[in-house]
């Protein structure tokens, strides 16, 4: 993919992550568990908007035409989804690491939280990839991303936030398994919708 060649975006997002967490570190020092968790998911949301939204919005008309000639719509959206998902998994690993380093460690089950954050990054990237594909066709696309994106990710963020409480407590809560299943189900639904609907967006 061409994205690998545009490394400056990747490093840009990386710098964004690092500096935001550093500012949080200066502002908050070592926050309590719930605050830590809330800050983390908000961070993930903004990283996702920054990293994934670029994938469609930055492509010029000519380059989209080029992609159109070399690949089918399904392959194209699948590769975009895959690339962004990988990117977000890497980003979420990095930000968990930085969070633990700079804001202290209020969790009791760190590895569980790492896994959850990877799942969260993965599902957020799916939503935003598809939304970016829609918004890229309209004018003022970055404002539209915000309008369409935020209501759509609220349920996901709420679920993730609730699921990740488990990593902060020793007592295992009920309903954890079904929440994880629901998040995964939502991901499957999103991928299916993207594959079915993207060909209609593509022909222009």
């Amino acid at each position: 993919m061409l994205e690998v060649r545009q490394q400056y975006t990747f490093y840009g997002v990386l710098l964004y992550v690092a500096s935001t967490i550093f500012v949080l570190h200066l502002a908050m020092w070592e926050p309590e568990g719930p605050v830590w968790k809330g800050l983390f998911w908000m961070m993930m949301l903004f990283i996702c908007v920054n990293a994934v939204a670029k994938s469609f919005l930055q492509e010029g008309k000519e380059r989209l035409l080029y992609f159109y000639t070399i690949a089918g719509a399904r392959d194209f959206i699948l590769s975009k989804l895959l690339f962004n998902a990988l990117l977000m998994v890497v980003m979420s690993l990095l930000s968990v690491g930085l969070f633990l380093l700079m804001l202290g460690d209020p969790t009791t089950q760190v590895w569980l939280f790492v896994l959850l954050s990877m799942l969260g990054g993965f599902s957020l990237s799916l939503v935003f990839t598809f939304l970016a594909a829609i918004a890229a066709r309209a004018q003022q696309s970055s404002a539209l991303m915000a309008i369409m994106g935020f209501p759509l990710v609220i349920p996901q963020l709420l679920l993730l936030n609730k699921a990740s409480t488990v990593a902060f407590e020793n007592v295992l809560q009920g309903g954890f398994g079904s929440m994880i299943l629901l998040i995964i189900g939502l991901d499957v639904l999103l991928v299916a919708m993207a594959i079915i609907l993207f060909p209609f967006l593509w022909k222009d």
Partner: protein
Amino acid sequence: MLRQKWWKIVCVILLLYTVVAGFLGSVPAEPILNETIRNLYFHVAMWMAMMITLTVSVIYSVKYLRTNKHVYDIYALEYAKTGILFGVLGLITGSVWARWTWGSFWSNDPKQLGATIALLIYLAYLVLRNSMTDLDKRARIGAVYNIFAFAMLFPTIWIVPRMVDSLHPGGMGNSFNIEMDPRLREVFYPGAIPGWTLLGVWITTLRIRLQLVAERRHP
């Protein structure tokens, strides 16, 4: 069939029946709910009408993507607008009800939040459509987003609010888990749901006709 008159008369009769029987008929006295149980005929039935009109809207969106006929796009848009109207009404009747049972109009209950998020997703549909000027493009992208929004409606309204504690009847901590009383059934199923749905269809067909006439005048 939709050009005929009989179903509009049926709609008026059903709604009259709903309002009269809803306010005057006898209802079972449940603890906590008491007389506010009458809101079943308005609030719950309006959500049902919303689900039905939004479903119709999605069906027309799919039809548009298959055939590329411009009328289907207008149908989908107007049904979605009516759905949003019923959603807003459902939210208002719900919070009036909440004033008398929970003590305040708005208490950040998961159900209220879920419904608000769902409405925001649909309002974004209208914004998205207005942001494009090209007719074909607007119709196609609108249809894609409409299908997507409908898919997201299920987690926000039906699944997520059920997984967290809620004061809403049907959830935990309230008395309405039991079977619906036959006296309520008599009004709810034959009267309220079809009544409000038919009203929605009526509004929508009027708006669709208006839209078609307006487009014929300014092609």
